[in-house]
């Protein structure tokens, strides 16, 4: 199947899996923002999620795992190939269109991977020290767990950094998705780029608001 071997095919897989993750991130933010409604909001939401039938939860998690793996696998493969595409760099570098974000997708991606691993260990498996107390009950007091965590400066800092990384990855990634899928042309491209950046920005602000408001003491447990 050309989708898994060819240059464009693999890019399309990157795009589809990337978009899947974008969808997740959007929904996840919508869900998470129930935190601003106080303990009741987030905890009810969490309970609602956990009470869904097992096949749905499992199916969803497996799908996410596959998406991430495919995205990472081909991301690394393509990046290695591309580094070889121009073995010797120019003495003078004069990029006109490529951006910091587009040139560092693999690194922002790698940081995101680290973040996700950490994030899962923290809030899903609850094995990091500050959430040890919440490990027992599922879902339990999710609100309390989150608030406790973000009182810690380092955790807040890590999250804020991760959100910047996510922002960078998505400013390039979202418009890139449309180009890769062939849903772009010269008329809509500027609009797509702007909208993509805007979505990335909204996600960034939305996500970063949670740790920052908690750390700053605005959102209290």
């Amino acid at each position, binding site marked *: 199947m050309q989708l898994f071997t060819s*240059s464009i095919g693999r*890019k399309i897989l990157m795009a589809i899996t990337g978009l899947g993750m974008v969808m997740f991130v959007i929904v996840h933010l919508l869900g998470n923002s129930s935190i601003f409604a106080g303990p009741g909001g987030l905890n009810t939401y969490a309970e609602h999620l956990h009470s869904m039938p097992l096949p749905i939860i499992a199916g969803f998690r497996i799908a996410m795992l596959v998406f991430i793996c495919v995205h990472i696998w081909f991301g690394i493969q393509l990046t290695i190939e591309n580094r070889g595409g121009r073995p010797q760099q120019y*003495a003078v570098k004069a990029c006109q269109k490529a951006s910091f974000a587009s040139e560092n997708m693999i690194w922002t991606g790698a940081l995101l991977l680290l973040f996700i691993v950490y994030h899962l260990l923290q809030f899903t498996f609850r094995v990091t020290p500050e959430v040890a107390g919440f490990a027992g009950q599922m879902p339990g007091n999710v609100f309390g767990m989150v608030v406790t965590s973000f009182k810690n400066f380092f955790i807040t800092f890590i999250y804020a950094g991760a959100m910047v990384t996510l922002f960078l990855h998505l400013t390039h990634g979202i418009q890139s998705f449309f180009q890769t899928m062939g849903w772009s042309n010269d008329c809509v491209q500027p609009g797509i780029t702007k909208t993509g950046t805007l979505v990335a920005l909204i996600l960034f602000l939305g996500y970063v608001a949670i740790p920052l408001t908690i750390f700053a003491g605005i959102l209290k447990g």
Partner: protein
Amino acid sequence: MSDHKTMTLTLIVWRQKNANDPGKFETYTAKGITEHHSFLEMLDCVNEDLIHSGKDPIVFDHDCREGICGMCSQVINGAPHGGQDRTTVCQLHMRKFKDGDTIYIEPWRARAFPIIKDLIVDRSALDKIVQAGGYTSCHTGGVADGNAILIPKPVADEAMDAAECVGCGACVAGCPNGAAMLFTGAKVSQLALLPQGRAEAAARVKNMSNAMTECGFGNCTNHYECQAACPKGINVKFIARMNREFIKAQF
């Protein structure tokens, strides 16, 4: 006009004897250059001086010197063709530079374009991509009347936009991944837009994209440097169209 005013420039030029030589930069001075010299005429003058002093002139590809054959190929201060909008090196004029400037001149750099000598690279990979399917398989003779199939003007115009590609390879040279997507996208799109090319559209896009990989070009990660480098202003929308054709071709 200021014919009497001349400039002196410092050129730092990539010199490489052949494919196996590691190559290095050499510094030259270009004297007596006017604003009316084209970039290649400036190099001609430098070469005349080099020959007079018994040295090997700098070799570079060129032919038509009017921006259409696609032969000229130099990266000037990091930008393929010198980075002026819609301008090939042969059309670049020295009035874009200032007296006393230092100019770096390098060949196209990409895995698929091995250096032959100095500023000359081997671009036959682009021909290979076209050989993989950049045509309609019509026979000589025995075709329909030119007006038998009507083509709306906007479609014909868009096909022409794509067809303007001169095959210079600046897109590859400018792409950080050394990808040939703009070149290939332009050809695929031109033929996909026209009814005459539709019949083979699916096979064409598959074969041509495979050829890109076989020739050692990188993959596209949508940097859009290629469009900035392209002397004919080929738009990256044609890459999008090729991707679309590719998806269609899978079904």
